[in-house]
């Protein structure tokens, strides 16, 4: 049995260190046959070293596109329209050349994807794939890199790593593949790890192992993690700060305790109420009405308006800004909590 000390307190103990990553007003668009849609619409986030920042949202909320934009992995028909992504000591990533970004990716920033099978190359041995990252970024010789790959596999909890390093991805179970992905992501001890639904494809018992491993590695290397998930349970266990995304914008952002104790945005409240839990048995769940919106046909004003139980006149007039509640780090995009809603 492994016990977790209350990790959620970790970030608030000392004075906050300068941010490692600062995303400002990021906007990413995709052109489709039916028109141009804004997958990410003015998102700002800030991550400190050693912090787990959770981004939670449903499909189409823009959470994955945010991560890909930070990594510089947006390809046609997508494009980053505006914004900046400042990485500490390295400046704005959006202005970097492809060659510079290739050096940064896998070295300073790594990413873990949802489906490890499609992110690993099926025709190469897993040890070779990990070693490749080391040879690219650390100028290691082949034998050095191979040795280091075995050590990394051992560190992510893969039994008989020397033998496993010689196996191909299809010979490993889903949980082991995700461990290999983490070993690859951790190979160069990146200062920032972007994890996009890292445990969604896994069973709960394996999910527990992988989440545990991510915390261990973060605590040891002091990396910051941007954790993207749809699962409020995973957020509650892992994150210190949370941003709730909906249809491309951040609706609410707060420390994890604040968000769960005092969800201010009707969407966050709706999401939390939708989760079946022990005491909801025999009662109807409080479902959010309607469907996840089509980004090409957003309502005017607040984009949550047509599903919101608290919608009132100002919501149709203008889109609310992300308003910082006084004296807290809690930010909400809702006219209910804004001092001056439009008349």
């Amino acid at each position, binding site marked *: *049995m492994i016990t977790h000390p209350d990790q959620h307190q970790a970030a608030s103990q000392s004075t906050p260190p300068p941010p490692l990553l600062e995303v400002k007003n990021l906007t990413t668009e995709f052109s489709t046959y039916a028109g141009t849609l804004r997958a990410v619409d003015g998102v700002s986030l800030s991550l400190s070293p050693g912090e787990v920042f959770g981004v939670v949202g*449903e499909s189409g909320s823009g959470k994955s596109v945010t991560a890909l934009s930070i990594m510089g992995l947006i390809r046609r028909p997508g494009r980053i329209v505006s914004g900046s992504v400042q990485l500490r000591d390295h400046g704005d990533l959006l202005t970097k050349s492809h060659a510079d970004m290739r050096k940064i990716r896998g070295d300073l920033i790594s990413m873990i994807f949802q489906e490890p099978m499609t992110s690993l190359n099926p025709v190469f041995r897993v040890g070779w794939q990990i070693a490749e990252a080391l040879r690219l970024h650390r100028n290691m010789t082949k034998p050095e890199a191979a040795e280091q790959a075995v050590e990394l596999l051992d560190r992510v909890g893969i039994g008989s790593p020397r033998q496993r390093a010689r196996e191909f991805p299809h010979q490993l179970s*889903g949980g082991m593949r995700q461990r290999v992905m983490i070993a690859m992501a951790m190979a160069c001890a990146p200062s920032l790890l972007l994890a996009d639904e890292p445990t969604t494809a896994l069973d709960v018992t394996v999910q*527990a192992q992988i989440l545990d491993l991510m915390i261990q590695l973060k605590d040891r290397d002091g990396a910051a993690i941007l954790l993207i998930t749809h699962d409020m349970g995973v957020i509650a266990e892992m994150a210190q700060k949370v941003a709730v995304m909906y249809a491309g914008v951040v609706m609410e952002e707060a420390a994890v305790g604040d968000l769960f104790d005092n969800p201010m945005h009707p969407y966050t409240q*709706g999401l939390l109420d939708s989760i079946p*839990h022990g005491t909801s048995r*025999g009662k109807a769940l409080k479902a959010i009405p309607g469907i996840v919106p089509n980004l090409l046909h957003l309502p005017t004003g607040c984009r949550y308006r047509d599903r919101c139980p608290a919608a009132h006149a100002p919501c149709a007039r203008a889109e609310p800004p992300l308003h910082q509640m006084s004296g807290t780090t809690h930010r909400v995009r809702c006219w209910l909590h804004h001092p001056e809603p439009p008349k």
Partner: protein
Amino acid sequence: MIDRTDKPTAPILQVRDLKRFFSVSDGLLSGTSGELRAVDGVTFDIKAGETLGLVGESGCGKSTLGRVIARLMPATSGEVMFEDRDILNLDHRTLLALRADIQSVFQDPFASLNPRMTAFALIQEPLIIHKVGTRETRRAKVHDLLRTVGLRPEFADRYPHEFSGGQRQRIGIARALALEPKLLILDEPVSALDVSIQAQIINLLAELQDRLNLTYLFISHDLGVIQHVADRVAVMYMGQIVELADNEEFYANPRHPYSMALLSALPLPDPHIARDRILLHGDLPDLANLPDGCRFQSRCAHVSARCRKSPEPPLAAVSPGHLVRCWNLADIHPGADTD
């Protein structure tokens, strides 16, 4: 609003020692073949009007079990009684009649709807196959069903890809209801949906059960969903049921070490709960080449010498209605009384 006290207790479905093996070959050259025991001796009842939650991880055999009961796949051996019919031995005509009584809802609402058929054609299809009604009465019935699942009849002429995931699942449910079945096999009906949509479908299923007096076999990997919907819970591991109990009893006192690990691994949406997670180690055994004794031995924290020897532990009652498949309950739960 949902009254669960006055439900009749007669079993509508009795499953006895059901087995479903798949043959596997070891490789291209060896040619030797074995049996993969996807469902290996499963016994349980479902009472009329209740929801039995069947929970387990991928590959545990829960979907195969559901498909064998729905006669989508033949059984290797065993007995399944639905009301008074032995459903594994039916001729063509009585099987067709049984199909009207047992219907399935599938996980992926896109894959389970023929993309070339309109919502109307999809929901009407079972009525046509079973020669129910005339053209006009069928039309009225389909429109009724659409309203029942919360879709406007004006949507009837649209194709599946023109609906959202939740709406597609509503069409799948309407289709399953068309023949007025008694038992619905719900195979991960909400797993592919967004959280907010998941709640809508769960509510819809609860309302329909109440209104139409349906019995559900609710298959899911999500212990949170099962806790909300199920009257009783069965946990499957490697083709067998390892624990079966009433909902409250199961979530309050899980007895099998695997159930305990599953429950402890479930992330709860509350950051203030600092929990002891039971992390399972070791690998899953090969279903085609099982070890002697208990199937959970390689991952169990409480394993003893007895677990590694045949026979494997039986599914035995620890209290009325609470069955557990484990030799070491007295050691794992020293305070608990076992009878």
